[in-house]
């Protein structure tokens, strides 16, 4: 269960300096000193007579807000002391995630309680109110590594691990741990020397650190990422897989063997360029002297061909003394005649592709003037690729009206064809389709402009990238094709429940609702939305609707079957239908998922029912509604309020009554008109009626006279 009960109380202990806020504390890797630091000392339990504050997570873990552990901070999470109420003295610590980045909730759900060798044991996790930032945050509780970090920061140096310890103390356990993670469908994606810890104070047992407090590989330096992953934006690298973990593991082992980051101070672009030119192993080792025993293993782990990269079985064989066939890097096609571009000469395609990305504006020239196509056709004799480039140019110009836009798309498409393994690159934006969701989520959380994401979807860069993979189309890619097609439709739809907000939630299963109304409540599940709105109703602007674009998109993405029709109704242009639609969205969620009473939210929604009340024509009915709504609001049941306001029989009765009243008014109006304007007609009818009256009167007189005369004669 995602939501955890949390209490906030005054801790019984001595007053301590206030804990820094999440935003104010820099990332651990940036702030940590370069020199080795002693392992963090366990702090005493809270005193019985103090004034510090604490929260209780899951009714079990006491988390002290004023006892940070900076040495265990993560780039996207701050570390704090924790006490286990059930097992006192158990060494634990908590990582409180910063809200600017989504955490890997699905991985948390899998890892919770699991004891995987050589992986930091996650004891529990939950969402709780975090007083320093006055909002709810994800809190992850780990076993505390008593020996501290292996390497305090990527920038620093440290006492290198002795060669004889490598094989059994580091490589074997961590490789086994990665296999176990892989079997559970998890890629760690945060394997780096500053995220390795010694579990014991003697510093003998190394474990992989946290991997759930940020999106996969976001904080991985380019040096530790594969060539392709390193080209992507940190947020757009995607979840990755076991081979990427093995690569990062190999690069980390290399640094542990050297005692420092051999690429420290080298720009990311330069690192990637060197890796492309000479291969990852050679680029990372450079002039360093590597322990002879590790060379084979490192070559295997750092090979750039994913299929040839070492796995745990290779490591086992290597540890058992079996000499494996040295891996030969596939030679890239070399043209005899170089292509001159951006003051450099290129003989092979991949380095040229990277240079074209770095010189985006110049790249279009060699594409449009045919230089690139001719070079590939004649220099490399790869006619399929040359044809593909020609086709990409033609089709893009044919489909796009704006030349500048078309140029960007052409460069992007050509780069995909030249280097299909690379991420999708579109000017400054570069990501894998798998990492697009995470990248979009981070941009949304940071309130950044989302135009580039819309362009990515609308210009179908994803489709071109999948097509560029040729025969190597992965099943996931086909699935992504369907997903992105849906996203394109959402972007076209301007209504609530669609748009870029919908895209964010569709692509990120556990992303909390980002509505400004409830963002601080960290709502990840549909049933939490109403509770969050209810609790926020005291401070919210009750003139605004409680269902904004984010909440509508969140509900539509997470609970489409239950709320689809209601959200459609909410988008009705008629204010009364839209208002009742909004009420129906909330009512159906409460009816199906609870809770039974929502007093604050009912009051908020009840105050917005003006258009619904006014939609009834009968004034008496309106007065009745105005009297009855407060009574229903006090019950806190939105479904009841909805049923009362949108009773079909009442509506029909009102409509029929109104139609009758309108007809009656019109009839009266006609009669009045006739009376006021029909003088001639009335005169005619008066004459006719008068003559008839005279005739009848005369006839009566005649009969009476006859009767009297005859009676007189006969009697």
């Amino acid at each position, binding site marked *: 269960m995602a939501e955890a009960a949390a209490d906030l109380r005054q801790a019984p202990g001595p007053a301590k300096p206030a804990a820094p806020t999440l935003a104010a504390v820099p990332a651990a890797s940036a702030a940590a000193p370069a020199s080795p630091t002693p392992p963090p000392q366990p702090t005493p339990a809270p005193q019985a007579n103090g004034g510090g504050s604490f929260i209780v997570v899951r009714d079990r873990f006491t988390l002290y807000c004023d006892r940070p552990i900076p040495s265990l901070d993560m780039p996207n999470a701050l570390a704090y002391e924790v006490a286990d109420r059930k097992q006192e003295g158990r060494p634990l610590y908590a990582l409180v995630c910063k809200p600017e980045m989504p955490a890997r909730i699905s991985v948390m759900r899998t890892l919770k309680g699991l004891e995987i060798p050589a992986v930091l044991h996650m004891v529990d996790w939950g969402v709780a109110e975090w007083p320093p930032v006055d909002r709810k945050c994800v809190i992850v509780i780990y076993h505390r590594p008593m020996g501290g970090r292996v390497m305090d920061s990527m920038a620093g140096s440290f006492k290198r691990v002795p060669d004889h310890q490598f094989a059994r103390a580091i490589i074997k356990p961590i490789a086994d741990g990665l296999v176990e993670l892989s079997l559970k469908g998890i890629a760690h994606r945060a394997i780096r020397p500053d995220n390795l810890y010694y579990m014991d104070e003697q510093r003998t047992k190394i474990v992989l650190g946290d991997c759930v407090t940020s999106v996969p590989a976001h904080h991985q330096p380019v040096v530790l990422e594969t060539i392709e992953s390193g080209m992507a934006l940190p947020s757009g690298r995607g979840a990755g897989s076991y081979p990427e973990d093995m690569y990062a593991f190999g690069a980390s082992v290399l640094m542990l063997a050297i005692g420092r980051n051999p690429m420290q101070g080298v720009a990311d672009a330069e690192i990637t360029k060197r890796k492309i030119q000479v291969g990852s192993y050679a680029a990372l080792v450079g002039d360093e002297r590597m322990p002879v025993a590790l060379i084979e293993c490192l070559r295997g782990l750092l090979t750039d061909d994913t299929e040839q990269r070492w796995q745990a079985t290779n490591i086992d064989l290597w540890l058992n003394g079996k000499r494996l066939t040295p891996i030969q890097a596939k030679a890239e096609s070399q043209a005899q005649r170089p292509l001159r571009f951006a003051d450099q000469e290129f003989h092979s395609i991949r380095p040229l592709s990277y240079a074209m990305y770095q010189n985006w504006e110049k790249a279009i020239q060699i594409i449009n003037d045919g230089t690139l196509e001719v070079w590939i056709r004649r220099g490399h004799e790869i006619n399929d690729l040359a044809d593909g480039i020609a086709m990409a140019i033609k089709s893009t110009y044919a489909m796009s009206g704006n030349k500048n836009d078309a140029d960007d798309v052409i460069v992007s498409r050509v780069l995909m064809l030249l280097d299909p393994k690379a991420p999708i690159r579109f000017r400054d934006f570069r990501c894998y389709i798998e990492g697009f969701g995470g990248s979009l989520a981070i941009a949304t959380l940071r309130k950044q402009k989302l135009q580039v994401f819309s362009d990515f979807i609308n210009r179908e860069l994803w489709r071109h990238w999948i097509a560029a993979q040729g025969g190597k189309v992965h099943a996931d890619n086909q699935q992504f094709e369907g997903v992105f097609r849906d996203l394109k439709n959402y972007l076209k739809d301007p209504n609530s429940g669609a748009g870029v907000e919908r895209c964010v939630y569709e692509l990120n299963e556990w992303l909390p609702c980002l509505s400004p109304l409830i963002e601080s409540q960290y709502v990840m599940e549909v049933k939490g939305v109403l509770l969050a709105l209810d609790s926020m109703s005291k401070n919210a602007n009750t003139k605004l609707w409680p269902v904004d674009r984010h909440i509508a998109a969140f509900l539509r993405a997470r609970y489409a079957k239950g709320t689809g029709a209601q959200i459609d109704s909410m988008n009705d242009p008629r204010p009364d239908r839209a208002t009742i639609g909004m009420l129906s969205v909330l009512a159906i969620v409460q009816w199906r998922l609870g809770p039974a009473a929502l007093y604050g939210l009912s009051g908020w929604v009840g105050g917005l029912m003006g258009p619904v009340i006014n939609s009834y*024509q*009968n*004034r*008496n009915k309106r007065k009745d509604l105005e009297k009855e709504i407060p009574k229903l609001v006090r019950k806190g049941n939105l479904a009841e309020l909805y049923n009362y306001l949108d009773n079909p029989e009442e509506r029909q009765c009102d409509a029929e*009554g*109104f139609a009758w*009243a*309108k007809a*009656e*008014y*019109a009839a*009266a*109006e*006609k*009669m*009045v*008109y006739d*009376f*006021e*304007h029909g003088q001639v007609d*009335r*005169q005619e*009818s*008066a*004459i*006719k*009626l*008068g*003559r*008839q*009256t*005279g*005739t009848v*009167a*005369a*006839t009566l*007189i*005649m009969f*009476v*006279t*006859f009767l009297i*005369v*005859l009676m*007189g*004669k006969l009697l």
Partner: protein
Amino acid sequence: MKKRSTAFLYVMLAIPIGLMIIPTVIVLAVALVPTGVAFIMERGKGYYGGLTVGAMNLAGASPYLADLWTQGHTVQVALGVITNVFAWLVFYGAAMFGWAIYSTTPAAVSAFMTMTAGHRITGMRAQQRELVQKWGPDVESVYEPEGAKAAAQAAAAQMNAEPTAPGAKRAA
């Protein structure tokens, strides 16, 4: 053909009956002259005038007819009646009274109707006010008779169809 045979049948029946009641026919022939005149005068306007004058005419003739039928139904008595000036006065006075009824009742009824229409308009306006109070101003509508609407539309169409150049005088 059928009409003519029916009329012939009526005549063939009327002649023997007429011969049987000749004294009555003589008196009525003299007495009902105003009725005949009234029917002729009001021809094409309905028979209300003739019927009203006729009814009063008959009422005036009724005492003399009763005398005729009770004192011996003879031509001699009939001649006595029609030679009586006073009888003529009664016949024609009653007919005149009938004509007076026929002439004055329309005016009286019209006056009555005008008086009641004011009350009805007030009542209907009150009813409309109640409807507006109960159902809101949306129930309101303005009545426009078909003729007036058509005339207004025709006028508008004419205005649109004949634009005048700036400075030019519109044709009457």
